[in-house]
């Protein structure tokens, strides 16, 4: 039991020691340098097996990668314990000045995650004269620059030759490249008047010039070693005051040196599985435009279907997929129009195919969509472009005579290439085939309501007019009802002054409505006098007095009504 425990403890200790030594660091050959200097970024993997051979630097905005990835391994035994160090490095040239942050890089190796520390570097605009003395750099050397290290079979790429010189270069020559095994040589260009720039490497100032470029299209897959290319460089002898890249025929004594560009290795990848019949070898990024010269033509008259591809890629290394136009057309081999040129690292421009179509019969012809598939190295997949071919209307000679017009408006042209809209899935409202839509009573509904409203308003208006016209007689008829209602509205709770007011108003109104004069009834005078007397002291009146007055009024009204 104790023995087993000891073994476990030993194992844990050994594992901890092993893990303790594992780390990844990121460093730069310099932390303070100028825009013209080339620096090295180094990733060190200590005691890590299966360390990566390349790193995604994510520094495209701040640095240009001019070399790498370079990898090296180092094993050592110290006191019976083995240590290993793997490094991956890149040569970089800064693109902008200032304080640049090198981010933390994360590496996931065998389910373990290692992070490097982020750090900053200072890049100055001027040349920093710093001599590290680490390495004795040659006065003149060549480097090759490739955009990436992996290309697809059939994908165009360019190898650039950079000359680094601390000497006065007068001229350079090399043998042209016309054939290369495993490649199609698209172009080899010796740049006779290159643009130069200054760069400091390990404290030594160099003039850098792109002196040649080689554009290739790989035809075979696998790891390929790019050919060694030798250049003969004519250098001005020391002591003569001439500038770099001077006219060599100006009587300057020179010495020639042969310089060989370093060996470079690239990986040529196989394209993914079969993409379909519309793929004919195009690799790059493209857009397609399809058009017909004339959408309305006479029979046996020619028109041209134009298919234009724009973009960048291996222009010139693919054909256009075959198109079917049916038996009613005589179709000639497409005429290819190229308008592209080499720009940067790729061919950029347009490639167009013109199909001449001659219809033999009138009719309206709708062609299949034109499909074109290319492989996109950026997306690492096939992309199929679909171009809709506008419908072509062919008319006979007889039909086009007279009033018939062959011109189509842009809207008509647009419609010719469109299809009808789809079916309605259900009926929302049905009606009898014999019914007229205007016979539907629902649509007239609000007219009926309006008529009813108008009738109502008319009746009300008539009533008002009638009442105005017969106001006297109406009041005469209603006088009794009105006065009784008013007198009944008062009770013992009503204030005496209000009570008096109501009695007086109601009674006087009754007399007025009935057109009764004071002298028609002698009893009236007494009642009116009583009312006048009460008016002077309404607050001192008792409810008994007022009820008495009310009764007198009612008795009088009854009497008058009887008459």
């Amino acid at each position, binding site marked *: 039991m104790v023995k087993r425990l000891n073994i476990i403890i030993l194992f844990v200790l050994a594992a901890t020691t092993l893990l303790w030594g594992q780390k990844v660091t990121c460093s730069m050959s310099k932390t303070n340098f100028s825009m013209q200097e080339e620096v090295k970024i180094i990733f060190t993997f200590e005691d890590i097996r299966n360390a990566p051979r390349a790193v995604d630097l994510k520094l495209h905005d701040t640095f240009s990668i001019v070399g790498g990835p370079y990898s090296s391994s180092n094993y050592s035994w110290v006191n019976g314990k083995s240590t290993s160090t793997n490094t991956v490095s890149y040569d970089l040239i800064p693109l902008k000045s200032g304080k640049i942050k090198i981010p933390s890089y994360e590496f996931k190796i065998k389910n373990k995650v290692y992070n490097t520390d982020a750090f900053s570097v200072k890049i100055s605009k001027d040349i920093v004269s710093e001599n590290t003395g680490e390495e004795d750099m040659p006065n003149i050397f060549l480097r090759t620059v490739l955009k990436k290290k992996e290309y697809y079979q059939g994908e165009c790429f360019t190898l650039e030759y950079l000359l680094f010189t601390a000497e006065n270069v007068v001229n350079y020559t090399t043998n042209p490249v016309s054939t290369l095994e495993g490649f199609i040589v698209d172009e080899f260009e010796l740049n006779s008047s290159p643009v130069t720039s200054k760069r400091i490497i390990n404290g030594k100032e160099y003039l850098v010039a792109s002196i040649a470029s080689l554009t290739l299209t790989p035809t075979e897959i696998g790891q390929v070693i790019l050919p060694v290319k030798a250049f003969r460089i004519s250098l001005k002898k020391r002591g003569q005051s001439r500038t770099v890249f001077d006219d060599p025929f100006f009587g300057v004594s020179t010495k020639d040196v042969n310089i060989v560009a370093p060996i470079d290795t690239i990986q040529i990848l196989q394209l993914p599985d079969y993409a379909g019949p519309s793929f004919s070898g195009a690799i790059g990024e493209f857009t397609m435009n399809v058009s017909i010269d004339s959408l309305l033509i006479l029979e046996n008259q020619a028109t041209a279907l134009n298919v234009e591809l724009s973009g960048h890629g291996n222009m010139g290394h693919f054909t256009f997929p075959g198109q079917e136009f049916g038996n009613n057309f005589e179709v000639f081999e497409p005429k290819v129009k190229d308008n592209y040129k080499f720009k940067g690292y790729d061919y950029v421009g347009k490639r167009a195919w013109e199909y001449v179509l001659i219809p033999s019969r*009138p009719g*309206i012809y709708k062609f299949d969509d034109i499909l074109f598939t290319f492989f996109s190295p950026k997306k690492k997949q096939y992309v199929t472009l679909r171009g809709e071919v506008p*419908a072509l*209307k062919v*008319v006979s000679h007889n*039909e086009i005579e*007279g*009033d*018939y*017009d062959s*011109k*189509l408006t842009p809207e*008509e042209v647009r*419609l*010719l290439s*469109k*299809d*009808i*809209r*789809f*079916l*309605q*899935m*259900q*009926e*929302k*409202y*049905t*009606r*009898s*085939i*014999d019914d007229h*839509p*205007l016979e*539907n009573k*629902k*649509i*007239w*509904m*609000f*007219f009926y*309501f*309006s008529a009813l*409203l*108008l009738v*109502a*308003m008319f009746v*009300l208006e008539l009533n008002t007019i009638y009442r105005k016209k017969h106001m006297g007689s109406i009041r005469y008829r209603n006088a009794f009802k009105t006065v009784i209602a008013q007198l009944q509205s008062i009770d013992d709770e009503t204030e005496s002054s209000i009570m008096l007011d109501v009695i007086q108003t109601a009674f006087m109104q009754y007399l007025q409505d009935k057109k009764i004069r004071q002298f028609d009834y002698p009893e009236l005078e007494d009642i009116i006098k009583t009312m006048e007397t009460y008016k002077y002291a309404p607050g001192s009146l008792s409810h008994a007095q007022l009820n008495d007055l009310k009764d007198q009024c009612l008795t009088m009204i009854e009497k008058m009504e009887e008459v």
Partner: protein
Amino acid sequence: MSKKYLLILLLLFSLCSLYAVNLQRETTFKEGVSAFAAEDYERSINIFLGLMNEGEISWELYYNLGNAYYRKGELGNAIRYWEKAKVISPSQEDIIYNLNIAEQRLIDKVVLPKIFPLFKWYRDLRARVDVAKFIFIIGVLLFVALLALAFLKYYGKNAKAPRKLLITIVIVSLSFGVILTAVALDAGSNRKDQHHAIVLENTVNIYSEPDESSTILFILHEGSKVKVNKKIEDIWMNISYFDDKIGWIKSETLGEIEE
């Protein structure tokens, strides 16, 4: 008591029958759509024609018939049924769109003289006017205006009454009502007594007289729309093509739009 129950049962039975008929129609309509989707256009046409012969119609039915004929390659019948659908629902976008597409496939194409854009706009608007809908809207506007007027008259003197709002409602409703009435009247009178037909055959001759031995005045092709002026015993039709060309055509070569 038993009579009452019998009456209720009869009513329920009638309602169920009506529902069953509607359900049957809906199912058949969907069968027509399915046949179309399966590219069996002949069957789709037969199903839709069967529904039409039952006596009930809708713009959707005519529209689908038009689509099925179009797919079958019968441009004349396609245009005829889309035009029929347009008679029922003149403002339906789908019908107008399909008719525009079909128009581009016509062989006979007459370019009309250009007219002032405002007139063109009005003519297009008039063509899309659904008179029944317009009548309904005019009715609503009239009712609203009268209601506002009534409020104004009987409650306008009230201090709290929104007099300005009521006056605005009356003016706006009446103004719109008048404009819509004018447009609807114009559209209605324009369509009244109009009788159109579509050429159903590939090529037809238009004669100077209702006689095949008379002079051929001009030729029309499938899908062309003509105005029918008069008929002779359903054998011959006197037609106008864009008003300026008049002649006689055999009735069997035409498909009438308005029934």
